[in-house]
């Protein structure tokens, strides 16, 4: 009871009104999930530091360092995201907008374009990217626009813009670079904040007939759903890494990525699936059934690996080790969010397919 009233007080600190949507509905399970995530990440950071300090460590020092950097990045990201989602949905949308902008910047910096692509790039950065996030910010009512802006309009118009310039050298390759950059860095990533504004249904356990089998999801805040998704992406990365190290024998594709193994992939997907089911069973922050949550978690973990492998392939092709070293002194954002990018749209669309409101 005592915890409940402090939480209410904390939430009420945010002023109501002023035309800003206030997420006063951060329910107890969501807050528990947040606290658990942050605590888990702090713990992971401490363990990483401890292993890094030990002299007789069995693990390669560079791997430990990479792991530590990753955990610190996740912790920062989760903390900022937690604060943002308490304040307002718009702040979360804006944050991801900035993240997309920076990721696209890294992506295009890495892929060589020609001078004739300049205008198309300008449109990508200053029209398409902001517009996508404005539509996401307006909410699910603009679904048919933000779902098609990049795959339909931008993907067709930007190559045409390049064709207008008359430079046809390696045309398809150049167009594909811009399309893929927008698809991964902007379109895909924008579905993370889009999770905050979805009208969803959930299964009615006391249903008698076919028509009331699904009822409107009672979860007032979608922050729980968002953090469930982010947690599963992080767990996917972490558990796969652990399985790789413990039992990994057969590399998936040695030429592309030297750490990802089939054992890690299978172990990661299965264990994340189980953990997803456990989290849903214990906290109930999503509209899924327990096994549904397990399936979604496994799917997210699988897509996360697809993302890491795909981005590794691009990096290998360009001859860079990670986006951080691409330009000296920049932290590579794209290295940190590749799994998030690939998992987000799949998570969004599958959720919408099964539990979205009809019509």
């Amino acid at each position, binding site marked *: 009871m005592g915890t409940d009233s402090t939480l209410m007080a904390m939430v009420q600190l945010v002023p109501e009104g002023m035309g800003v949507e206030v997420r006063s509905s951060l329910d107890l399970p969501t807050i528990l999930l947040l606290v658990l995530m942050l605590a888990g990440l702090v713990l992971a950071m401490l363990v990483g530091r401890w292993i890094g300090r030990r002299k007789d460590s069995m693990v390669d020092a560079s791997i430990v360092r990479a792991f530590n950097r990753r955990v610190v990045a996740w912790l920062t990201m989760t903390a900022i995201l937690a604060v943002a989602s308490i304040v307002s949905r718009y702040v979360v949308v804006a944050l991801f907008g900035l993240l997309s902008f920076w990721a696209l910047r890294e992506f295009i910096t890495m892929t060589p374009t020609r001078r004739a692509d300049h205008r198309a790039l300008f449109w990508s950065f200053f029209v398409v990217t902001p517009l996508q996030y404005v539509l996401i910010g307006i909410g699910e009512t603009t679904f048919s626009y933000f779902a098609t802006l990049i795959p339909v309009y931008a993907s067709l118009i930007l190559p045409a813009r390049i064709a207008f310039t008359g430079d046809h050298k390696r045309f398809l390759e150049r167009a594909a670079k811009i399309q893929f950059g927008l698809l991964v860095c902007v379109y895909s990533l924008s579905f993370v904040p889009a999770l905050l504004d979805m009208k969803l249904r959930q299964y009615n356990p006391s249903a008698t007939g076919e028509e009331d089998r699904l009822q409107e999801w009672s979860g007032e805040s979608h922050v729980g759903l968002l953090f469930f998704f982010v947690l599963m992406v992080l767990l996917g990365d972490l558990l796969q890494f652990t399985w790789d190290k413990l039992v990994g024998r057969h590399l998936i594709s040695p030429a592309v990525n030297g750490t990802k193994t089939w054992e890690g992939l299978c172990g990661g997907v299965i264990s994340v699936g189980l953990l997803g089911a456990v989290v849903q069973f214990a906290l109930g922050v999503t509209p899924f059934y327990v096994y549904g949550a397990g399936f979604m978690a496994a799917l997210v973990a699988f897509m996360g690996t697809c993302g890491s492998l795909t981005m590794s392939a691009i990096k290998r092709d360009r001859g860079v080790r990670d986006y951080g070293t691409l*330009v*000296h002194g920049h932290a590579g954002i794209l290295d940190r969010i590749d799994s998030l990018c690939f998992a987000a749209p799949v998570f969004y669309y599958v959720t919408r397919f099964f539990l979205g409101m009809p019509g």
Partner: protein
Amino acid sequence: MNLTVSLLAGLAKVVSGASLRWVDCQPDTCQRVYFANHTSHLDALVLWASLPRHVRALTRPVAAKDYWDRGALRRYISRQFNALLIDRRQIRVHQSPVDLMIEAIGDQYSLIVFPEGGRSEEGELGEFKSGLYYLGKKRPDLELVPVYIDNLNRVLPRGEFLPVPLLSCITLGRPIWLEAGESKADFLTRARQCVLDLKES
């Protein structure tokens, strides 16, 4: 250093995403000539803006008068950056650009110059004009610092007026001086090679 200058410098750094690397060279307020490859109109501004505050207060970029003296905005910007505008078309014997530069720096300022004279078309480093040699000859005390500017030509290519905010990188290398008895051609080749070497480092 007033507020508008800081704002403009910050804007130039954000748009170009520039990161500065000092290789065998440290930021210093001693008199220097930074000589760089020239790929974009932004070169001088971004290099200048990326320098540490106390260094750039004493550094003047040399820019083309025919570009930076046209239009109120460009004139305003070039004045804010304390640019030294040189007329490329009217080079007179008794008042050569090198004399103007030496006069402008006095015993205090450093310079940013682009010895290629103009922007190279597809990012390749052109031949150096002789100005750098005469600078080194008339003022042997100046440190000549090679600078390689990478990717800025994609931020603002030739003939475009709207920048695309990609990431760029500026590398500053070990200072060189004109050796005793070194011929003009030898020196210019060596200076050009210093800039090229930074590309790989």
